[in-house]
């Protein structure tokens, strides 16, 4: 396993959210995290990226124990999260947003090369590169957020609700982009309310409810409507 969470307990302040969550992601696969609202899906991603600390259990990444590491150390290892609600830097231009994403690539040359590659796969962003990111539409901002994550040359890309609040056209655009990344066998973990979206993108899934993994879906294409309804409604 590239990334593995073992028996994770975590929460905010004194409020527990996750109870004994275990999860594993192999290189090159796309894993979905499913479940109803407040199941702890976003918290799980934040635990993986280091925004939320682990109370008990541990995290392994490429064979190393990363449990005590903060977010910036995990970014340095290539564990990159695209936050829910996009969170682009609004006053920075699109290009500056991407450069900030690529700060972990030490040399300016590596960064410029990466920037060119990212522009190649995100052509619309190249046209918008001098605009402040706060002026873009929701879908464009989501592309900026994903592209910013890609600038760091992720080993694992984690996406929190990438289609949330987007127009249907923008959802298709984001979906197409992620499908392209999947075909390049980028390892991804996706939290998503839009079931169809998850269905078509992910090969495996974990169903979370009330902070516990209640079932695993080994092949998304075999997920029946009933099982799905059960996953979301309990």
């Amino acid at each position, binding site marked *: 396993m590239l990334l593995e969470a073992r028996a994770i307990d975590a929460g905010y302040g004194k409020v527990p959210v996750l109870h004994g969550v275990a999860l594993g992601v192999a290189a090159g696969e796309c894993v979905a995290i499913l479940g109803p609202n407040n199941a702890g899906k976003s918290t799980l991603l934040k635990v993986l990226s280091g925004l939320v600390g682990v109370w008990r259990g541990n995290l392994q990444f490429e064979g190393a124990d990363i449990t005590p590491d903060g977010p910036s150390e995990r970014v340095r290892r290539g564990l990159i999260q695209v*936050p829910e609600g996009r*969170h682009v*830097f609004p006053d920075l231009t699109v290009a500056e947003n991407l450069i900030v994403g690529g700060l972990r690539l030490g040399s300016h040359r590596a960064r410029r090369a990466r920037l060119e590659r990212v522009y190649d796969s995100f052509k619309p962003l190249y046209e918008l590169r001098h605009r402040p990111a706060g002026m873009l539409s929701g879908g464009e901002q989501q592309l900026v957020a994903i592209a910013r994550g890609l600038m760091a040359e992720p080993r694992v890309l984690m996406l929190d609700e990438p289609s949330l609040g987007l127009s249907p056209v923008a959802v298709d655009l984001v979906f197409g982009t992620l499908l392209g990344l999947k075909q390049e066998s980028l390892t991804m973990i996706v939290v998503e309310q839009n079931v169809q979206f998850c269905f078509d993108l992910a090969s495996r899934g974990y169903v979370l409810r009330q902070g516990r993994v209640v079932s695993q879906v080994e092949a998304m294409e075999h997920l029946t409507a009933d099982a799905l309804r059960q996953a979301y409604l309990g």
Partner: protein
Amino acid sequence: MLLFAGIIQGVVLGVILALVTSGMVLVYRATGVINFAHGSLMALAMYAAYDVRRYGGVDPLLSWVAVAPLMGFIGWGVFRWIVRPIRDRHHLLVVQALLGLSFVIEAFLLMRYGADLRSVGNVFSGRVIRLMGVGVEMTRAVAFVVSLAGLGGLGLALKHSDWGRRLRAIAADEMAAELAGISVTGVEGQVWCVGVGILGLVGPLLAGVFKLTPDMGLRYTILALVVLIVGGGRTMAATVASGLLVGLSETLGLLYLPGSYGGLTPYALLAVVLMARPAVAARMVRQR
């Protein structure tokens, strides 16, 4: 002619004020904290130049080489040991702690140097230079040039360096910055270091322009606060414009208003700005 002389003097003062305030603006943008000890730290830097001159015989035009790093370290320390431990508590706690620090500095200066007015001469003392026909103290002119260069350098660094991009990123969105691999507290410490270190750069020069008294700190804190609020605390350009406005209002006020009422004009300006654009100040308080 008098008006023209006033304008020149006001511009010189305004640019110096803008550089002094820029340190406060950087700190405010990166950490959301208004440094109520800013002026007192500047007083400290000025007295440090006095000591370096007195005991080391080093001219204030050179002593910034030692004073600026010292002030930078102090700024970093204030963040690390005073601001960071308490900033997640009630927001007035940081204000109280920094005001407290400013009184501690004032008491220290009073104990060490006494209440007498002091000044720190440099090689340019007593010399006057003509700027477009208006006589300006040479030291003041040097401080003006240094401030212009400092502001320009800061502006460029903010816009084009990785450090500037990191700072703007954490000012815009701390969580997203963290997820981009930026160590937020690390950058915040650097910003306090630079923001207060600037005082070590101009303080020694200004010690040859303004008279030193131990209780001067709070006055400069408030003057910088006026520049910060009038400018909105967002960009370098706005800070420069606001510094010019405040400098001009003070100089012209002293020229044209009777008695010492002129010294009040910056505060009157603040009152006008607050009445005309209360939303600006409210936003500054609400942020973070």
